[in-house]
């Protein structure tokens, strides 16, 4: 009996928390599927007049979608610089004597410690 109550308690807590997390996101989604008139015209829990027009605008008007293109360019550049930096960090490790450690483990199957540490 007690155990079942416990599960219900946890489920309730998680349910409420997830609801709290998802409601604002739902609302955003809800808005995105409404027409401008509907949004400003009155309050409704669901889009009465479901439309994808907003998405069409976003994906066709350059003044909107260039933002995404710029983001992508930025991310690609960031990633390439990270890779670049990644190589550098390897060298960093080597200086501290970590280099040996990293490769030694591989060579001698010395992952016991790693497992222990985990």
């Amino acid at each position, binding site marked *: 009996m007690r155990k079942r109550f416990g599960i219900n308690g946890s489920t309730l807590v998680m349910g409420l928390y997830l609801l709290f997390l998802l409601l604002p996101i739902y609302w955003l989604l809800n808005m995105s599927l409404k027409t401008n008139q509907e949004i400003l015209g009155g309050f409704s829990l669901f889009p009465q007049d479901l439309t994808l027009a907003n998405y069409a605008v976003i994906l066709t008007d350059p003044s909107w979608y260039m933002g995404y293109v710029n983001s992508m360019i930025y991310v690609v550049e960031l990633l390439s610089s990270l890779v670049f930096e990644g190589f550098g960090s390897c060298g960093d490790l080597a200086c501290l004597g970590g280099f040996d450690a990293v490769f*030694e483990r591989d060579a*001698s*199957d*010395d992952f*016991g410690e790693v*497992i222990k540490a985990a």
Partner: protein
Amino acid sequence: MSLILQGVSKVIGARTHIYKSDLELQNGTMNVLLGPTSSGKTSLMRLMAGLDVPNTGRIFWDGKDVTGMRVQDRRIAMVYQQFINYPSMTVYDNIASPMRLMGKTAAEIDAAVKKAADLMKLGPFLTRKPLELSGGQQQRCALARALVKDAGLVLLDEPLANLDYKLREELRAEIPKIFEEAGSIFVYATTEPEEALLLGGNTATLWQGRITQFGPTPEVYRFPVDATTARVFSDPPMNFLKLVKSGDDLLFGNGQTMPAAGDWSKLPDGPYQAGFRPNHLELSSYGAGAIEFETKLTVTEITGSETYVHLDYHGERWVGLVHGVQKLVLGRVLPVYLDPAHIYIFEKGGALVSAASYAKAT
């Protein structure tokens, strides 16, 4: 071919893991490192493997100084207490992995893997993943990997400690057989004296970061150089008794004496420590000349064929291992007997001054 450690020591932080030690291991031998947990077995192995660099001393392999040489440039295989295999590879690929790294041909690899798997009785499991195997099989897989590597130095760090008692017994009997022909240097760390005896070869006893003795296993067992070695190499632990030599007599307990005959007559007067192994205490069938001790029985443990008796002799705690199932009353005074031929005498500092005479006969 040999591996020589010369004045090697290891200090990490404020703790000395290994005090200055020398050790020489010959090719084709099984070498046991015997000692309790954190006595330095693993530290010593890591030095041998090159995973750690010693603070002092040098390590020679085949006469060549390898101190500071990287692990991957040495020919070393290692097996751990945990069953360590690549979880995403099949048993076959696990065993083959070191050979693939060496760039062997597929045919060579296949032959070697099949052979190792046969030896380790893994034949039927080659296509499985390690985690689908029992603990014993997983460790066999790790051993097989060490085997195919054709390493000059194979380090086994308590490889059987995590296995069931019976499996341990079986693998323990197999390991020396399997590695006999390989012709490498084997180093095997264990906490159990019986394991050392079963593996044979040579044994180095370790205690608090020092190698107390190194030699052929039966010799170290029968002629321990000091009380510490004797204690490490005895399970149940060796029993001790305080003695005083005075003239022609050895005094102990409450005014009991025994004649200082044979080798003992040459000892200078003074306090000593006598040691004897639990299996040499007798309850009945004792020979002539046996010494009688009046002890108090605290606990008995029956193994089915033998009985362990835990005794109190004037505050010294002793264990006896006697034949047969003995129904004894606890708390009573129990006379036990000991043949003087089984007594080792150590000086107060612990060094052996006289080995038991029975040992010389065997």
